[in-house]
């Protein structure tokens, strides 16, 4: 009964969504406040209905109701409670429902916290959001209904894919979707602006917090996904340039560009049309990502069980939204007036450079991801574009970006002083080179390019510190005054500096791991010892074990350095009984920021076992950097100026009001 209620709530949600998609837009055209107000209540009601529906599905998973086909396919009563719960989105249908839940969550947030938005803009934004939710509700109800029943109900489920039985599933998809789908708000704002034919600095101020929030979640989500793949898959890699990874990375690149261009628009009213275009592109890339993952058109390690109707349905959604948005853009963008002027060497110029590099980088990733698809359609040749392509193109593109990052904040708006920026940064550059050489020496050499790479990472970090140093004017005033000035800086200044520093930390980690990581594959017998990264690993033998829904063979390794035992780890091969599916659980030992990674292979006839051992120096920097970036976003978001729903101070004049709107306000 409760299941049917959940299903019914979803159908009702579609009806509500269609109402919100149509009536408020008519209201906005006619200036009818009552119709516009429908958008607010409708969006909140929509969120309530979808939450209920999602709650019902979660309940069905938690109590293991195998009369639901979806639960039967993806759950098992012996699974620990946490995986029965997270299993809700460990499959296509459930994860689409989560996608939808987050979409309507953002709509409701705009509805509740957007009190200070002009009523027409708010109605238009919520209307566009409702178009998206209507499309996805239709998609779920018609092709991916999680509430399909089975009769008779099976006694036991087929278990969740073992790879997904991990804490990573509890964290990664929700964070990723909060990012992916959060950009829908920017998209809706862009479409609303195009419909109204009016856009100004206030628009950018409304859009920026949403962009920042989505970007922050996406950053954390991608990092979490990368770490999950690293420790769970047992291949020791942290990024594979897999189409599905690229699908999440492209919106991140475009979103990062959007974050910076919205800054220019907010402060200087320049780059308006470009910002609108970026907002559209970012969410289009999110939709494209959803399509690539769900349709199975590309070979990827992330395979959802796919069926062709779903692919075609999402392709239709994709073409309608992206096509429609770009058509609207082409038609209405000329109405938007161009903004402020600036010299090529200026803060704006630096942000344009940032946008240029990031969008070109996005385009190269897009090319590499879709090229196999295009070539197969055109010529029938099947190819794969692998890591060498991406490392070469994307890697080279990142060099000028990394070098430019510290300069951007040092340049003044309108007209900057490059020489002055050099003078302020040469200390940071010198220190960076010194730090890189120290690390190089500590790691006993390696390619000379690595020094430059690490120096670039340090330069970005020290540059962020220098930025705060000069903003507080420590070079001009006494230390005490400097501290007071530092404390008085807006939070967004700290947020920006933190995010840049985090980027530097990630760069550092990537360069160091790529250069200094070692890998060895050895056949080990009980009692044998091998060396990796300056540590000695002794294999103490295998042992059989069992978990709630799996059996395992696990090997014990003692790790010592200089004859002193410092750590030990288990590495195992598991067999999940319900699906008869094996997995590898790597043994990972952390030393500071570095890790020793031990993965088991096959048992040999001779009684030994193949063991693969990686030494991954400073690998944690890669993810810590991303976490610092996300924290930077959070700090920036807490800035009063950007706080969602905080009452706007009247001091700042809002751009020319639309005639006829004052009465409504």
């Amino acid at each position, binding site marked *: 009964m409760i299941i049917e209620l959940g299903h019914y709530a979803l159908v009702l949600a579609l009806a509500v969504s269609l109402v919100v998609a149509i009536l408020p837009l008519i209201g906005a055209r006619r200036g009818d406040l009552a119709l516009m107000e429908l958008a607010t209540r409708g969006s909140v009601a929509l969120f309530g209905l979808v939450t209920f529906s999602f709650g019902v599905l979660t309940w069905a998973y938690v109590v293991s109701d195998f009369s639901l086909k979806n639960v039967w396919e993806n759950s098992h009563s012996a699974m620990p409670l946490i995986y029965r719960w997270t299993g809700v989105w460990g499959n296509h249908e459930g994860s689409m429902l989560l996608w939808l839940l987050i979409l309507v969550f953002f709509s409701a947030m705009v509805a509740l916290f957007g009190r200070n938005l002009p009523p027409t803009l708010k109605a238009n934004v919520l209307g566009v959001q409702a178009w998206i939710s209507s499309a996805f509700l239709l998609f779920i109800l018609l092709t991916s209904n999680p509430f399909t029943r089975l009769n008779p109900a099976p006694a036991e489920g087929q278990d969740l*894919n073992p*790879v997904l039985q991990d804490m990573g599933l509890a964290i990664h998809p929700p964070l990723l979707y909060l990012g992916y789908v959060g950009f829908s708000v920017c998209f809706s704002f862009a479409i609303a602006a195009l419909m109204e034919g009016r856009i100004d600095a206030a628009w950018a101020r409304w859009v920026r917090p949403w962009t920042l929030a989505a970007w922050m979640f996406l950053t954390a989500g991608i990092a979490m996904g990368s770490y999950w793949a690293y420790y769970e*898959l*047992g*291949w020791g890699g942290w990024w594979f340039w897999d189409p599905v990874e690229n699908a999440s990375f492209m919106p991140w690149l475009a979103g990062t560009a959007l974050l910076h261009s919205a800054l220019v628009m907010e402060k200087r009213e320049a780059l308006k049309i470009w910002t609108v275009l970026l907002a559209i592109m970012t969410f289009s890339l999110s939709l494209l990502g959803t399509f690539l993952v769900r349709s*199975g*058109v*590309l*070979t990827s*390690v*992330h*395979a959802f*069980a*796919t*069926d*062709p109707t779903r692919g075609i349905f999402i392709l239709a959604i994709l073409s309608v939204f992206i096509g429609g948005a770009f058509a609207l853009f082409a038609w209405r963008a000329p109405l938007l007036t161009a903004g402020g*002027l600036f*010299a*090529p060497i200026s803060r704006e*110029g630096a942000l*344009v450079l940032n946008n*240029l*590099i990031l969008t*070109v980088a996005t*385009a*190269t990733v897009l*090319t*590499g991801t879709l*090229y*196999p698809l295009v070539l197969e359609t055109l010529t029938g*040749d*099947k*190819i*794969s*574009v*692998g*890591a*060498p*392509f*991406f490392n*070469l*193109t994307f890697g*080279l*593109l990142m060099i000028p970006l990394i070098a430019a990052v510290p300069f951007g904040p040092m340049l003044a708006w309108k007209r900057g002083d490059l020489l002055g920026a050099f003078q302020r940064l040469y200390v940071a550059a010198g220190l960076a080179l010194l730090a890189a050489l120290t690390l190089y020496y500590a790691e006993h050499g390696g390619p000379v390019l690595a020094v430059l790479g690490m120096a670039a990472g340090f330069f970005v970090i020290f540059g962020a510190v220098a930025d705060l140093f000069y903003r507080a004017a420590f070079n001009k005033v006494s230390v005490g005054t400097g501290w007071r000035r530092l404390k008085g800086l807006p939070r967004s200044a700290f947020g920006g500096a933190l995010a840049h520093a985090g980027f530097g930390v990630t760069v550092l980690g990537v360069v160091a791991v790529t250069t200094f990581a070692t890998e060895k*594959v*050895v*056949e080990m017998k009980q009692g044998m010892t091998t060396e990796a990264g300056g540590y000695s690993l002794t294999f103490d033998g295998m042992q059989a074990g069992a978990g709630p829904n799996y059996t395992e063979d696990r090997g014990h390794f003692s790790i010592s350095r200089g004859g002193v035992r410092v750590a030990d780890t288990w590495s195992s*091969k598991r067999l999940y009984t319900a*699906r008869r*599916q*094996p*997995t*590898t659980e790597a043994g990972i030992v952390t030393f500071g920021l570095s890790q020793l990674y031990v993965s*088991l*292979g*096959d048992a*040999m*006839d001779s009684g030994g076992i*193949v063991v*693969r051992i990686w030494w991954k120096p400073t690998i944690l920097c890669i993810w810590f950097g991303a976490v610092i970036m996300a924290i930077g976003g959070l700090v920036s978001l807490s800035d009063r100026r950007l706080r969602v729903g905080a009452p706007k101070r009247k001091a700042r004049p809002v751009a020319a009001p639309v005639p006829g709107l004052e009465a409504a306000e």
Partner: protein
Amino acid sequence: MTRKQKRLTIIAGGMSFIMAAVLLVMFALGQGIAYFYMPGDLAKTPVPPGTRIRLGGLVAEGSIQRGNGSTVTFAVTDGTDTVPVSYTGLLPDLFREGQGVVTEGKFEAGISTFEADTVLAKHDETYMPKEVADRLKDKGVWKGGEATQ
């Protein structure tokens, strides 16, 4: 600088950057891609030694042999033709005889064994690499209900 000059500087700079990026992408596409072959394709048109390719098919029954240390040899088949493959490293968890597989690597001159450096793993045992599924269906060797289920 006048307004026009400023705009021109920015546009020219941007364009040259984009041009450079396009050239880079074209160069990298020439280097960094691997064509997909099935054993039957190789029988018809052998690839020159040293060219990176992907070889896909089914792991032939009874062909997996573990040599010294971590080197494994097995054969990839499409039902009619078979290519021996040698791989050093850990095989993915779901690597089994009779299952679909995609390997990446190259042929050394004068040796008929394919030297693979990557054996693609899968997340899910019901998943068949798309290229393999399409081609095996064309040949009628494997009949999956749906493309990848």
